[in-house]
């Protein structure tokens, strides 16, 4: 079984999306030029999600990747809801009041976010009312709390993450009279998702990370070479600080059982996540919710299973670690990706491949004849060769696609091997997950003219 290059391309490009920040009068005044994103599923259906949106009532752009586990429900919910929580957390008091008044009097609402969505990125219609009500309760509380202080981005991000996770948990505890929604909120709460979110506003870049997705800055050195700067720490067993944190939060007696086989309680790879109430609720709460829940939930062995050595919940938090970075002229792009990418590629290679992709063509030395003896035929050959080189780079119109092509198809020499690519992409559904994970990538390009 063999996929032709066009077939490979159609698989790789099925989910690709590009957004260019609109120019005004031929000039882009934003620090972001635009972004490319793409996903390649290994799970069926894919458990990764991605989101991108421009904040309309404050400045800045939000981008995030979400890696779901135990189903995609939680990742889906977070991808729909988290940016609203962040945007609301960033809003000044007056705007919150204005919005609340609008809702109260049934007037049209100020739009808060402008989404940049691929057609395959869907929002749940059924839950929108429920989600909206939770969000409204949040901003009402913010209004009541009115601290009068200007909103700090770091705090806003942390609050938003925590609040959303809290709402997910509450919604599952309260349930919903509508049986479809009731099952949905339970699935969201019992599945889990990591999140890696970037907020870019001018030269201020904030990364909020929960879990083992990763944010990486592509930096161009003075000699033109590329290097990678991590803007997030993985929350998993490889991160000593994270292991330390978990151990600190629980009695000494649990030290041995907390992390087993590099997993939290021997079960969970990420040490921080949304949802996953199995690692957050007390045993009694879990049992009560499951018993009163729908049959489907009761039939599911996974949800009924209580983790071993479960004494002092919660064991898991959605609180993100936030890193602030002031963009410099040499910071050319940001890569947000789920662990599916980082498992297969070193960040240094990612920086190089994206960097060369984004600038490769422009940096090709122009040809000058000068005083040399060059014939028309020689020049023609030279130009044809250059064009061929450019077109192979430009087979991908999207940096994220280009990166996935390398992640899946790279051979031992670090170049894309079509045969390998074809094999990897034609794996049957049930086998795919064994060779690779879902991959979701967002590549944000910065505007050096403004920074």
């Amino acid at each position, binding site marked *: 079984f063999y996929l032709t290059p066009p077939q490979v391309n159609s698989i790789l490009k099925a989910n690709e999306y590009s957004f260019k920040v609109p120019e005004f*009068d*031929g000039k882009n005044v934003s620090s972001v030029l635009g972004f490319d994103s793409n996903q390649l599923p290994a799970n069926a259906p894919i458990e990764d999600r991605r989101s991108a949106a421009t904040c309309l009532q404050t400045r800045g752009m939000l981008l995030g990747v979400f890696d779901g586990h135990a189903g995609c429900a939680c990742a889906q919910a977070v991808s729909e809801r988290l940016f609203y929580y962040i945007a609301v957390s960033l809003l000044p008091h007056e705007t919150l009041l204005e919005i609340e008044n609008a809702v109260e009097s049934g007037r049209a609402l100020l739009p808060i976010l402008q989404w940049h969505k691929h057609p395959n990125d869907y929002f749940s219609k059924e839950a929108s009312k429920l989600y909206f009500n939770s969000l409204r309760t949040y901003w009402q509380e913010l209004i009541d709390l009115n601290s009068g202080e200007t909103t700090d981005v770091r705090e806003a991000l942390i609050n938003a993450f925590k609040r959303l996770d809290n709402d997910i948990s509450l919604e599952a505890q309260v349930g919903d009279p509508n049986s479809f929604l009731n099952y949905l909120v339970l699935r969201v709460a019992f599945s889990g998702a990591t999140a890696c979110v970037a907020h870019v506003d001018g030269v201020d870049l904030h990364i909020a990370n929960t879990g083992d997705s990763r944010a990486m800055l592509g930096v161009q050195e003075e000699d033109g070479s590329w290097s990678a700067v991590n803007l997030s720490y993985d929350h998993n067993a490889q991160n000593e600080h994270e292991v330390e944190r978990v151990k600190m939060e629980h009695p000494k007696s649990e030290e041995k059982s907390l992390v087993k086989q590099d997993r939290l309680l021997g079960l969970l790879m990420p040490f921080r996540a949304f949802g996953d109430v199995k690692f957050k609720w007390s045993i009694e709460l879990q049992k009560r919710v499951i018993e009163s829940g729908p049959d489907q939930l009761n039939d599911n062995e996974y949800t009924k299973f209580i983790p071993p050595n479960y004494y002092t919940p919660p064991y898991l938090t959605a609180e993100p670690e936030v890193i602030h970075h002031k963009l410099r002229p040499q910071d050319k792009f940001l890569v947000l990706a789920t662990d599916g990418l980082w498992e297969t590629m070193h960040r240094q290679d990612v920086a190089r491949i994206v960097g060369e992709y984004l600038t490769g063509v422009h940096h*090709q030395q*122009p*040809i*000058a*004849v000068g005083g040399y*003896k*060059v*014939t*028309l*035929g020689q*020049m*023609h050959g*030279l*130009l*044809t060769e*250059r*064009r061929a080189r450019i077109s192979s780079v430009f087979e991908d119109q999207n940096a994220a696609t280009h990166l996935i092509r390398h992640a899946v198809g790279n051979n031992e020499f670090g170049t894309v091997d079509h045969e390998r690519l074809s094999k990897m992409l034609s794996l049957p559904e049930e086998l795919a997950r064994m060779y690779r994970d879902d991959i979701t990538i967002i590549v944000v390009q910065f505007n050096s003219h403004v920074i």
Partner: protein
Amino acid sequence: AAGMFLRLLSDLQWRAAHPKWRGMTSPRRSTSTTAEPHPVSLPAQAQVVICGGGITGTSVAYHLSKMGWKDIVLLEQGRLSAGTTRFCAGIVSTARPMSIELKMAHYSNKLYQQLEQETGVPTGYTKTGSLSLAQTQDRLISLKRIASSLNVMGIPCEIISPKQAAQLHPLINIHDLVGAMYVPEDALVTSANVTLALATAASRNGVQIHERTSVSHVTVQKGRVTGVETDRGRIQCQYFVNCAGQWAYELGHSGEEPVHIPLHACEHFYLLTHPWTEPLSSSLPTVVDPDGRIYIRNWQGGILSGGFEKNPKPLFTEGRNQLEIHNLQEDWDHFGPLLSSLLRRMPGLEALQILQLVNCPESFTPDMRCIMGESPTTRGYFVLAGMNSAGISYGGGAGKYLAEWMVNGYPSDNVWPLDLKRFGPLQSSRTFLRHRVMEVMPLMCDLKVPRWDFQTGRQLRTSPLYDRLDAQGARWMEKHGFERVKYFVPPGKDLLDLDHSKTFYKPDWFDIVGAEVKCCKEAVCVIDMSSFTKFEISSTGDQALESLQYLFSNDLDVPVGHVVHTGMLNEKGGYENDCSIARLSKRSFFMISPTDQQVHCWAWLKNRLPDDSNLTLEDVTWKYTALNLIGPRAVDVLSELSYAPMTAEHFPSLFCKEMSVGYANGIRVMSITHTGEPGFVLYIPIEYALHVYNEVMNMGQKYGIRNAGYYALRSLRIEKFFAFWGQDLDAFTTPMECGREFQVKLEKGTEFVGQEALLEQKQNGVYKRFTMFILEDHDTDMDLWPWWGEPIFRNGRYVGKTTSSAYSYTLERHVCLGFVHNFDEKTGEELVVTTDFINQGEYEIDIAGQRFQAKAKLYPFSSLFTQRRRKDEVELSGYQRE
């Protein structure tokens, strides 16, 4: 480095050739290029100051001085023939699709040919001939159309086979060719030297030439040029000529009163090679391969080859920019596709060694035609620029026309297609120009089929109904920035995409337009005609009437509420404009003219109306949406909507009344249609447009109303033999020559412009006559369609050209309109054309070399009319140009 070589080259030649001339300006050119004091100071005043020492500037100076104007100063910011002229490829080619361009190129060729003899300056003029190659049948058709035009002008020209082409130029690979056109008298020149020769001759005639003098701006008082400010002081002058090439736009905007000269520069590349091992003959014809987007000429034993790429690089959008000038480098990657094309055409050249790739910016205009004429707002400010990479081919002829314009008040031929006044401020946006020239430059090589539309710079001016019409399947074209509907594609019907719809044969919209025409004839159609130019002229007393009586040939002293069709004529009796004027009250008039008259007509009236604060002229184009209700049931629709009787007794033809339509009051309804079908035009204040449109469409439903576009309108007006200004009528056509005597009231009691000329024509007869031709043996499905510009033959001899054509769905035949002349068989002198002369001939129309029999008629088919009307009622005028 790109410029250096050529600069040295032409300087050397210059020094060798012009010892005399050198003495007349300054000795500085023999030394280095460092700044030196200017030995000759600028005069304090002159009659004419020309800015720009390129081919256009020197050509204007040359022709002005030849015509007897001596007090002329030519200023050049650098050195003569710098700029685009120095670098241009030096090809003089007459193979041009437009007749006026063809005439200019022909004249240039003849001028350059004798220039060396006249001035003693070697111009490098070599008659090499040119070969235009066709890779496709469509291209061959377009070449055949040009060949027909060249032939009737007496310019030798042949359509030849690929094999014959190979005999004329042994290096051509002919495997992919279907044919070629050979023009043996096309030539090559050294463009810099042609410029120097023109300058030399002008200088001998008294023109003062000052180099290294740059114009900062032109001073204006009371709408007239008064002088020029330069970096070396001020010159008072009556006339200023902007020949600043790619800087003309900026210079136009530098003064207090901007002169809008819409052009934009693009980088243009060509390749120079070392001589071939056996140097190529200097008599090898120039090869133009439009399908390959390239031209190739012999150059000093090697070749010079450039082209017009699909992805041009516009520059200087933000004005002159030192950085950009500096960055004008060779871009081989950009030139790559053209090089491939060159080697495909001449594979034998592979071993030829590269000398350099020259980057020479050229300026392009929004419609691919050059810009000449007087500013509509500043009298005495003339322009000649925007040569669209054909400066050498057009320079001579264009300079002559502009000189005639300045000296005589108008050139010796109709140059409206090139007139600066076809543009206004609306084409002057930098963004628009940048986008449009990126489309225009590739178009230099693209196939030009009938009725193609520009794709960039669109949706600028739109009717309030635009979205409504668009949602109903409207397909759009643009005129003077205004979107107008061509036709409506019915739901479920697909048309070809843009590239595939290009054809010289029956177009894919044939049946669609047929259905719209049928509806106009049998029921009722709505056409949005909001683009037309609308002026209001009013006064406190009789000033408006008196002025209009003087400026228009028909009698405007009609009862209030009457509409008059009339020409706005020049002194020679020619149409400057053709319009409908409604008398709104004793003292105010509403005037409707063609869309592209907005700038020209305004300037014409402004310059001629008395300077009287009690007389006001207002452009109200934007205030009204115009809906044309055409068809026998228009009466019913309108009377139901207004509860007013609309029958001929109550609302006769050529009548104007304000009334209510639906809820909207104050709708100006006129019983004219521009096509001769019964119907009305509604002038609706724009805020009512949607309401009235909706009402009309709802009410019209039971009468079978539908939308229609301009293509239907054109078919209707042409089968009715209605001339349109800009298409059929121009400043060289009088009412007498197009059967419009009834619109001229020679005895109206007041004098009017053109009266004398018309009286003379009335006595002596006319020298051309507007005639309608019905093609007899033309197969609509199989044969090439006529367009306009096709030669007309009478008894086998050329007598004129068509000006417009359309398929008549009623006659089921093609109808062409055009002018018949009577050239003396021996001398070629123009003789009087009589009715008998027209009626007693056997006619043929030449479409791309193939002749079709045609029946000539001087009057429209009366049987086509659904109801009988008075003759002067049916001879309505119309206004638009396809």
